[in-house]
């Protein structure tokens, strides 16, 4: 397993690439989730008054 992570000496570059990509895409996944939840809460407040 160890040499798998070693990636023939390029461990830093390979795992950094996959890591940053995963991070950026995760942000793109979470942002709409939070925004959707927040918009729903706003809608509920808006209609609770009306």
């Amino acid at each position, binding site marked *: 397993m160890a040499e*798998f992570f070693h*990636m*023939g*000496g*390029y461990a830093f*570059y*390979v795992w*950094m*690439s*996959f890591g*940053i*990509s995963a991070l*950026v*895409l995760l*942000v*793109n*996944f979470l*942002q*709409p*989730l939070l*925004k*959707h939840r927040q*918009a*729903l809460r*706003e*809608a*509920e407040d*808006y*209609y609770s008054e*009306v």
Partner: protein
Amino acid sequence: MNIIAKWYYRLGAPNWFYPLAGKMIPWVAAIFVALLIPGLYMGLVTAPADYQQGESFRIMYVHVPAAWLSMFVYAAMAIAAVVALVWRVRMAEIMIISSAPIGASFAFIALITGSLWGKPMWGAWWVWDARLTSELILFFIYLGIFALYNAIEDKQTAGKAMSILTLVGVINLPIIHYSVVWWNTLHQAATVSKFDTPSIHIDMLIPLLLMAAAFQFLYLLLLLMKMRANLLEQDLASGWVKKIVFERQKNLKK
């Protein structure tokens, strides 16, 4: 109304699109994961190391799909821009503003992984290679589209202005790309472009196609989620949101 027109009309209506997108999201997410796992496994483990680049060529499995997607997303936005301007479909404008950040993220990933791939192979973090330079310009165009939409308060005007900018962009992108390629040959000895995928062996190709397909579904997934959020936020005071809120409250009471 024939079936296509009915579909076309309904897709444009938020109260129909919002629940439909909600139902589709789990399925799209499932397909994405089903493609991602084998793609990653084959890409990182089973695919043979490249005789020149060794293991670092595996960065290709993230760099190339991200670069493809950054262009695919822009093409999809350009089509939506035509639909938005010619048939005045508001849903197409929501699609564009939801796609822009996703496209920008793919372009950003392509740039970062490109420089991480370049460093071990050619010793420089940034290489003024034709494709990387075009990708950087595409990244700035995405930012411009996103910034324009957010700078205009009235969302109807913002949508139209953004659609026009998207179309201006789609006409300019080929011109920019070929002038950058020409500029690149002028300033560097005509080496084979550094980011041509290596002579692709079948075991290397399959994970690449799997990863590309996985990224396509990821784009669809992120797009649907972003469109639902943007729609709900913009249409706060309109009838269909009121119906959804009351339905949710009814289920909670049950």
